[in-house]
């Protein structure tokens, strides 16, 4: 199978920070807002270079979303920064009315998504955000997989006119996508061709899917691996082409089984090409404190879980 190399572990939130810094230099309309989490969101470089284009709103996320909506009136492209939990559920109605329904060009940038936030525990580990955001009409939902892709996605969404939810995480993870890869919203990336099973992964689970494919290869199973960085709009053509070939699919995400990528894939298959599917996701549960690795192991979100799910789904063909 195609080899992918980790060029050095890095956090996706730093990819966001680097992308935002680049936008600060290249796009004078880009402005940034933060609700008292500048360090966590890696926004300091942007602030240092563009102090007049940064708005520190304090611990007041609802106000931040409204200010962001207002900044678009006058041609600005606001990027809001806070944790995923406080970027979505906490301010859902503000996003719904002032941003989504109003069609405002706001980029909601959300760090520390999912279990890998780790020790802070379930109050901060949102596993429902993809579902919340993809249900909003007109909202684009993106969950890149590593530092390079998060940086590229951050830059790409500034060029797109409309509300976007960009989800990324806290821990340092493998950085394996090419630094020069152009990010195309809504375009799946085929990472490995295979014929026995399709593994569709998003975010931190993409690297795990590649590890799983290597382990499956050793067992004589050929796995196709697709990186779905954009959950909405979903690249249905890429999914259908792959599952049409392999006849079964495993979806993998750091999110609740309800409302996540897996359900979007299931809906696509049900409409077009019903096929067996297994879900690697959290099973309608809250998280808990622990290290990211411990949590991903306990809640079944790693390469081993994807291997197991792949073997199971192939038997169901």
């Amino acid at each position, binding site marked *: 199978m195609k080899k992918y190399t980790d060029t050095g572990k890095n956090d996706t939130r730093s990819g966001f920070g680097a992308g935002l810094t680049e936008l600060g230099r290249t796009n004078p309309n880009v*402005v940034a807002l933060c609700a008292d989490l500048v360090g966590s969101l890696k926004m300091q470089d942007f602030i240092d270079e563009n102090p*007049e*284009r940064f*708005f520190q*709103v*304090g611990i*007041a996320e*609802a*106000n*931040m*979303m*409204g*200010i*962001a*909506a*207002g*900044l*678009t*009136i*006058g*041609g*600005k492209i*606001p990027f809001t920064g806070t944790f995923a939990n406080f970027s979505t559920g906490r301010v859902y*109605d*503000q996003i*719904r*009315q*002032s941003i989504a*329904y*109003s*069609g*405002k060009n706001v980029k909601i940038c959300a760090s520390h998504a999912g279990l890998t936030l780790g020790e802070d525990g379930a109050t901060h580990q949102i596993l429902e955000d993809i579902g919340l955001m993809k249900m909003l009409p007109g909202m684009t939902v993106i969950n890149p997989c590593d530092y390079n892709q998060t940086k590229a996605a951050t830059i790409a969404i500034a060029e797109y006119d409309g509300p976007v939810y960009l989800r990324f995480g806290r821990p340092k993870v493998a950085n394996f996508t090419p630094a020069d890869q152009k990010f195309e919203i809504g375009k799946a990336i085929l990472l490995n061709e295979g014929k026995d099973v399709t593994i569709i992964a998003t975010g931190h689970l993409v690297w795990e899917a590649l590890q799983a494919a290597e382990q499956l290869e050793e067992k004589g199973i050929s796995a196709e691996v697709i990186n779905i960085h954009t959950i909405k709009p979903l690249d249905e053509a890429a999914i259908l082409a792959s599952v049409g070939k392999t006849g079964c699919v495993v979806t993998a995400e750091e999110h609740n089984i309800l409302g996540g990528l897996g359900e979007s894939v299931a809906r696509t298959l049900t409409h077009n090409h019903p096929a067996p599917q297994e879900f690697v996701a959290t099973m309608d549960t809250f998280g808990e404190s622990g290290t990211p690795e411990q949590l991903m192991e306990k809640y079944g979100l790693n390469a081993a879980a994807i291997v197991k799910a792949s073997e199971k789904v192939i038997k169901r063909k």
Partner: protein
Amino acid sequence: MSDTQQLQDFVTQVRRDIVRQVHKVNSGHPGGSLGCAEFLSVLYQEVMHRKEGFDMDGIDEDLFFLSNGHISPVFYSVLARSGYFPVEELNTFRLIDSRLQGHPTTHEGLPGVRIASGSLGQGLSVALGAANAKKLNGDSHLVYSLHGDGELQEGQNWEAIMYAAAKKIDNLISTVDRNYQQIDGCTDDVLPMGNLVEKFKAFGWEVLEIEKGNDIDQIREGLNKAKSLTGKGKPVAIMLNTEMGHGVDFMMGSHKWHGVAPNDEQLEKALAQNPETLGDY
């Protein structure tokens, strides 16, 4: 237009528009709409610097945001009669396929509306963002916003009130429709908000009161005074003491007409008290 009688005629026609819109579809919010008829008329007809036509960015003109979106009947009437869209379109209020949704929205592209509102407490934050954008753009025009008093029970307002003063958003004039009424009754019975003037002051705002919020001359004077207070490092609040249902005697001063439409007989009474001036749609 600066003549008070001409403006009074405008207001009277707006009142007719309000009750006729709400009566036709037997739904909508006449009470707060009637109470703000003078304010919005003075604002749009005399005070705001507005460009011809409408574009979303509104650069080089004053902007207005309606936070208490349920008073859409008065907003729609004033917008239509200020030239944003045909007055006849008021006939489509709350009907299927209309741009005049129950609560104002940008979704159907109605000229004059820059944000959806209705879910309360969000408009001040949006106005702050627009005011920030004006500063970034070197645009010296002002941002106006209107809020219900009951709406100030929503916590987001106080995040925004704190932010506005802390960040010296001094190109903003926010008006509170202080009619002491909300759906369930008098604000002092539902959830007393205390002395709102002192609260805004304590947060660092310039505050002025318009004692008679349904008096054109007082509104004109108050808004001009508010304008003179902008650009001095503080946001400006106006406490506008209005009477819910003003101009229709059986609706005046009662929360019962917050969200209830008049029947045929009540409509005739209301219209008789507000004779046609500029021509019905």
